């Protein structure tokens, strides 16, 4: 443990300012969502390949089934969360100016939440027959 080092002293660790910040949790969630992605995306790709066609009526009828809509929503959560964590690491590696980094994080979070909300709402709208 790094408890002996000045740079990771008690207060800094509580505030998440040690060199690892909240990195271990981030790393772990990247793995959990990776496992989720793996299972759900194999299901998704295989299911789409088995559809009779990709027409509007075919696709909406497929999504409207509970056993499709629910895994699809899980897939949206898992992939968008994984994406947020992953792009954050990329930004941390390449953007070093604090202000610009903050802006990039905010833009990333807006993009993920907006696109994720659109995707989730769309599945629900189809499932509940809007």
């Amino acid at each position, binding site marked *: 443990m790094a408890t002996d080092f000045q740079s990771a002293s008690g207060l800094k660790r509580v505030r998440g300012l040690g060199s690892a910040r909240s990195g271990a949790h981030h790393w772990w969630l990247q*793995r959990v969502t*990776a*496992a989720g*992605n*793996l299972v759900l*995306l194999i299901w998704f*790709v295989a299911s789409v*390949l*088995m*559809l*009779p*066609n*990709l027409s*509007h009526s075919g*696709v*909406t009828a497929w*999504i409207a089934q509970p056993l499709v809509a629910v895994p699809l929503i899980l897939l949206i959560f898992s*992939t*968008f969360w994984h*994406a947020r964590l*992953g*792009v954050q690491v*990329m930004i941390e590696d390449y953007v*070093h*100016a*604090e202000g610009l980094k903050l802006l990039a994080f905010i833009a990333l979070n807006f993009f993920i939440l907006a*696109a*994720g909300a*659109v*995707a989730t*709402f*769309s*599945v629900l*709208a*189809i499932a509940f027959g*809007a």
Partner: protein
Amino acid sequence: MADSRPLSPHLSIWKWRVHMATSIFHRISGNALVFAGLTLFAWWLAAAATSKEAYASFAAVADSPIGWIVWVGLSWMFFQHLMSGIRHLIMDSGWGYALGTSKMTATWVFVGAILLTAAFWAVFFFGPGLR
């Protein structure tokens, strides 16, 4: 600030190795999947939820020459990321760090990704579904 930190004097001394290529491709493919993949995925779902006409405009773009270039590229990026992602998870368990092993698995990531991409399109065009 970051610029004033000391840097290793050997940063420019390196040569390409296959395991380095898997690493940078993991980043490239992951980010391509986010910015092209998730955006198109959300558009596809939104178009399907909105109307037949909205879905037709999505389909027109998806079925265009540029659309097909994107689908082929995205499918390759997907299988590349999937393969190197699995390699990451395996190496997280502590296995695969010996130089020869690491090289071998990195090579298989590239070979496997190409094979899976080819298999995907073979099933897409000649498989039991989608006609």
